[in-house]
């Protein structure tokens, strides 16, 4: 606890650098990554991330010095080479782009590991920390690193800000952008450059292996919460920054831990929470929607039985026991009871001892369902030319989906018929609230 407070107070200058650096990084890679995500280039991002390793190693071997700017340049060059290689392979050969990505990723990364092993075997003292580029070590960031990182992140966000409308049209409809005369090629180069830069600058903190997740996951998570591009990007940046904060805390409190995996665990949890609980798109809300439709369908089916029995006996308000209802159509006893109680609360059903009967409101609703059922049967036999003995099944399930306006269309198209294809009367109510 004391450790956490000490960390959060940012009293230690080095902690300040690390936290600031990694949060900046998380936010700006998320901003750039939002476009990578929307352009469906996530795998290219992964290939670039793995491909910067040989560049870093070569830059180190030539300069014999671990200066962040030198390593950044090396990473940038080999990252760009990987993009070009993917492009050339998929355009000039018969190899499709997914295979091209896989080839480039593994070849570049292989060479990188080879060079890294070589550097380590030479026993160069300065190489200490170079292997942290695999999984990242945020705590090893020093003031110099953060200066470079900050400058690059600022550049990234600024560029996105200025090219915002161009990048959004490029991501949505590149052909149309070309037809407008926008310099699409140029814009693509800029966006790719930003992606490579974001990756190159992030690897010291996150590592080449997991950098792609830093790029893509915040955007993927943010997409669940909003349909607005600007909001999505801001949210992705917040997610990225928070994961950065979390990762750097871990790196600070447990120095032996690689930072990258922790940042990724954090952002992945955010992504899972989004996937599960985001309104509209989240799984929980989808499940809830489905569940409430099921309940609604059950209630409507029970009401319909009251209507059918009432129609048979010419007594709509007769009190009935549950077994009498089940005789007409089998329902689980417990569910039927729940349903009756629910409708009682809604004022559609009344209870007397262990018998149940329709109320006036209940009858209106029951008639509505029976009416839609029979109208839809009529519609299918008239417009879809289905024989009368084939229409019941379809109507049984679709009757629960009609909105008032669709019902009105149905009535108009059929011109208010008297009976359904089985010659049963269609129960109109006096013009109600529709």
């Amino acid at each position, binding site marked *: 606890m004391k450790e956490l407070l000490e960390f959060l107070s940012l009293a230690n200058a080095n902690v300040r650098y690390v936290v600031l650096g990694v949060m900046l990084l998380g936010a700006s890679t998320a901003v750039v990554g939002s476009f990578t995500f*929307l352009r*469906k280039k996530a795998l290219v991002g992964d290939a670039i991330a793995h491909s910067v390793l040989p560049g870093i190693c070569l830059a180190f071997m030539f300069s014999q010095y671990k200066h962040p700017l030198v390593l950044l340049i090396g990473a940038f060059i080999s990252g760009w080479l990987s993009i070009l290689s993917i492009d050339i392979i998929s355009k000039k050969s018969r190899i499709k782009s997914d295979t091209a990505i896989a080839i480039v990723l593994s070849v570049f990364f292989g060479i990188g590991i080879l060079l890294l092993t070589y550097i380590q075997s030479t026993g160069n003292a300065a190489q200490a920390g170079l292997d942290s580029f695999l999984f990242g070590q945020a705590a090893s960031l020093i003031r110099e690193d953060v200066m470079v990182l900050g400058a690059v992140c600022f550049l990234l966000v600024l560029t996105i800000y*200025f*090219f915002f*409308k*161009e990048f*959004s*049209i490029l*991501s*949505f*409809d590149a*052909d*149309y*952008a*070309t*037809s*407008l*005369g*926008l*310099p699409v090629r140029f814009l693509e180069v800029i966006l790719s450059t930003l992606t490579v830069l974001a990756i190159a600058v992030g690897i010291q903190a996150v590592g080449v292996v997991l950098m792609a997740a830093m790029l893509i996951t915040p955007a993927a998570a943010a*997409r669940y919460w*909003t*349909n*607005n*591009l600007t909001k*999505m990007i801001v949210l992705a940046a917040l997610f990225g920054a928070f994961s950065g904060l979390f990762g750097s805390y871990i790196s600070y409190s447990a120095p032996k831990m690689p930072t990258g995996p922790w940042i990724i665990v954090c952002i992945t949890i955010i992504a899972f929470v989004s996937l599960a609980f985001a309104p509209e798109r989240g799984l929980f809300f989808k499940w809830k929607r489905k569940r409430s439709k099921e309940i609604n369908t059950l209630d409507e089916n029970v009401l319909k039985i009251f209507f059918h029995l009432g129609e048979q006996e010419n007594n709509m308000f007769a009190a009935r026991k549950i077994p009498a209802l089940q005789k007409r159509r089998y329902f689980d006893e417990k569910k039927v009871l729940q349903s009756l109680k629910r409708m009682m609360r809604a004022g559609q059903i009344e209870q007397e001892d262990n018998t149940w009967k329709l109320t006036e409101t209940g009858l209106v609703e029951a008639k509505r369902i029976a009416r839609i059922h029979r109208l839809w049967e009529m519609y299918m036999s008239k417009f879809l030319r289905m024989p009368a003995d084939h229409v019941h099944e379809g109507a049984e399930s679709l009757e629960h989906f009609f909105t008032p306006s669709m019902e009105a269309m149905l009535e108009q198209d059929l011109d208010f018929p008297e009976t359904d294809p089985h010659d049963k009367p269609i129960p109109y109510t006096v013009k109600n609230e529709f």
Partner: protein
Amino acid sequence: MIIQVDNPVLEVHDLTVSYDKNPVLWNIDFSIPKGKLVGIIGPNGAGKSTMLKSVMGLIEPQSGFVKVFDKDLDDVRQRVSYVPQRESVDWDFPASVLDVVLMGRYGRRGLFKRMTKQDKEIAMASLAKVNMEKYYNRQIAQLSGGQQQRVFIARSLAQQADLYLMDEPFAGVDASAESSILSLLQEMRAEEKTIMVVHHDLQSAYEYFDWVILLNMRLVASGPKEEVFTPKLLQETYGGKLTLLDSLSNFIRRKELPIKG
């Protein structure tokens, strides 16, 4: 039956286009007069969309050239508008209807510039023309196919161009939307705009268009509909591909040979 015109809005000269080294359009050569509704008709795989794309410079032709208003396309981009096929984009993109229609203004505004109030008014007016103004704030993924189609048309209208190239604007729209789109196109024609439409329904084509291009990898006909809609020419267009063209282009693709004069 290829009728060339004086002072054409669009001139396509000896255009040959290949996909993946596979020629799909052979020596297309025609010109289009001003203020017409032009239908591009032909069977599936005839290269109708490809032709529009190469007119718009989205595909580099193997040979030949295109002149728009007697100039290179790049000099008159503002006067030409393109409506891609609805399925060519992912409609799950985070954007509202108005966002998409505003894209029609991007070309005029240029790099770095923000959209102005005037741009928004033009975009809203374009939406009104396709009866979609009340949906301006709707997320595009929630639209029906026909509504998406109309949003694309509105985006194109927002460009305020003189020549419109539309790829299957009637695909997937219901009958009432189709007739309202058609009357919109007719209004545009009355304002001396030229509209070229890729269309797959032969039944309605005669009724809709003034000028018809019949295409099946090669140009079969281009001219006023009365002269082009003959059983012989239609038979030529729909009566299967020329086998020789097909096997020649397959051969070139297999050997991966470039086509050079």
